[in-house]
């Protein structure tokens, strides 16, 4: 907050009928906002880089279980990033995400088995899934809301069923082993972790670049205006399909990492039992937020790991926690911080600090 006082606030010159102190307060508040906005980009960047460096050190200071859980969290965070782009930013409840995730996992694993280097399969699986996502999203031309949800749900389930039928390639319901790619010189868990972390960082960076700015705002405009956005010269249809393609790409990239992490995949992994946690992650992270996916993924993973040994009670606990969260925080867990931030108590704190700094 030290840079706040250095802001050139010029309340005295303002030709205003208001008492000087009030004007000073208003200007100070405004200046605080500007300063926060100007400084926040840099500050956030530094925080992100520091966090990234700390995360890179993780395998050297903890056991393989922790490394695995953090890797899984990152994979889910990437997948949620794509899901959030579709559900939150473009406002389309497309429920084929688990299937696209599966396409990434199977696409990469099958390609690796056929001799393609793993790192090459990541973008390849992503592009394949993006094309498939456009096909799945095509009903979006005519369908809205719940109808789109049900159509995409059906298509997604059909894709997972297809994996069962394509037994010669995918091993059918019995599943298939994944050849794990390892960087030379380190053990498998750490190697997979480094790849997951790197890819996750790249995906977060790319999606952030895409969403902060013109494209993200247009997506939101299409979400809120629908066909009316045509009067702004924006093709709602094209943006909806692009959202599907991007989210499919991100989902498949996460899927390729997931296969590497699990080392064994089978179709039943990608049914409703995956889609539901994915929905939870989007919801908890807050639909339409950028860093929410990380929070959502961490929440879901902690929940899953925490309730792991409860058997039947696990599903109950899972359902009940989900219901309680929705009932208490209909805007997701991240809305809690926003609610707290805009609460009267926090507002008073901000105001007092701003005015004391101005008067001292």
């Amino acid at each position, binding site marked *: 907050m030290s840079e706040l006082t250095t802001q050139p606030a010029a309340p005295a010159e303002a030709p205003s009928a208001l008492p000087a102190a009030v004007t000073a307060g208003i200007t100070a508040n405004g200046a605080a906002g500007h300063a926060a906005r100007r400084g926040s980009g840099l500050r956030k960047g530094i925080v992100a880089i520091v966090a990234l460096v700390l995360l890179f050190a993780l395998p050297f200071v903890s056991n393989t279980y922790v490394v695995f859980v953090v890797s899984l969290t990152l994979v889910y965070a990437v997948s949620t990033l794509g899901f959030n782009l579709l*559900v939150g930013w473009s406002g389309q*409840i497309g429920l084929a995400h688990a299937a696209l995730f599966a396409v990434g996992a199977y696409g990469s694993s099958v390609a690796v088995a056929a001799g393609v280097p793993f790192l090459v399969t990541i973008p390849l699986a992503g592009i394949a899934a993006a094309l498939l996502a456009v096909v799945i999203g*095509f*009903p979006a031309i*005519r*369908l809205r*809301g*719940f*109808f789109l*949800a*049900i*159509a995409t749900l*059906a*298509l997604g*389930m*059909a894709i997972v*069923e*297809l994996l*069962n*039928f394509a037994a010669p390639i995918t091993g059918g319901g019995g599943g298939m082993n994944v050849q794990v790619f390892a960087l030379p010189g380190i053990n498998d868990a750490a190697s997979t972790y480094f790849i997951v972390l790197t890819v996750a960082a790249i995906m977060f960076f790319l999606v952030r670049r895409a969403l902060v700015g013109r494209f993200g705002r247009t997506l939101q405009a299409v979400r809120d205006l629908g066909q009316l956005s045509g009067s702004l010269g924006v093709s709602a249809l094209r943006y909806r399909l692009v959202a599907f393609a991007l989210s499919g790409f991100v989902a498949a990239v996460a899927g390729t990492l997931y296969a590497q992490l699990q080392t064994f995949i089978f179709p039943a992994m990608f049914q*409703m039992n995956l889609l*539901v946690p994915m*929905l*939870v992650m989007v*919801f908890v992270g807050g*639909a339409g937020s950028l860093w929410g996916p990380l929070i959502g993924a961490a929440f879901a993973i902690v929940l899953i790991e925490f309730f792991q040994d409860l058997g*039947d*009670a*696990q*599903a*109950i606990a*899972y*359902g*009940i926690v*989900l*219901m309680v969260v*929705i*009932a208490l925080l*209909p*805007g997701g867990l991240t809305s809690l911080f926003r609610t707290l931030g805009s609460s009267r108590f926090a507002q008073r704190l901000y105001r007092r600090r701003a005015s004391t700094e101005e008067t001292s």
Partner: protein
Amino acid sequence: MLQTLVSGLESGSWFALLGLAIVVVMKAADVPNFAMADIGLVATYVGISLAGAGVPFWLAVVTTLVTGILLGVVIDVALMRRLAKYGHFPLLLMTIGLSLALTALTGLVWGHDPRSFRAPWTGAAIEVGGGVAIGVSQIVSIVVGLLGAVAISAFFTTPVGAQMRAVAENRATARLVGVNAGRLSAIAWGVGGLIAAVTVMLQAQSALVSTLTPASLIIYGFVAATMGGFTSLFGTFAGGLVLGIIQQLVGTYISTAAQFSVALLVVFLVLVLRPDGFTKGMRLRDV
């Protein structure tokens, strides 16, 4: 062939009834209820337990129906209504969470073994000639399904039903002219719970039900509702029956593994080709 058709009509009646339950709630409360089959399962298990404890059959049936109604109303009042103003996504998730919790709760209380609701006529069959026998419970399913559809259609012609149609048509205007939308959504959930209880009970008196039943049943219910465009009662009912017959034909002549995929394909085709349901334009009796 006849046996296949009857089996198709039987399971088709279950799908049709559940589809109707989904449509009723969807119209009045604007929620696609993924927990509908679970509500029916809990109610049915209550009935099965009572019947197992020596309670007369019809009393157990009535208790099952009342449980279904109560569950529906309680869920609406306690959970769903406050979320309505936050849009579609929390509502959708809430029903999914509810479905998870209810299924797991059922498993915890009653176990995961398949159960059946023994009716006085269970096991009896009627010879129809040519060595083909039709189970009485199959006939019960079909007849009750038909009666249920007629009853729901009749319900929508009563004053309450007319108000529900008004809310479905335009919520804000309906409220302006004095329709109590909250009361109506509770009624819709109650009716939905009732139909769901009937559906699962019908399945339990003819076949076995377990905690795995709701997951597949709800998908088929949604397929039926989709075929009716989520509005048409007739379309939903006919869609459910057609789906049941397709299922049985696929199961008999292709493979039982393909049944589910075919159902999914049907949804997709209907939504792409006729997003308003395949009876749209016929306008027989829309809700």
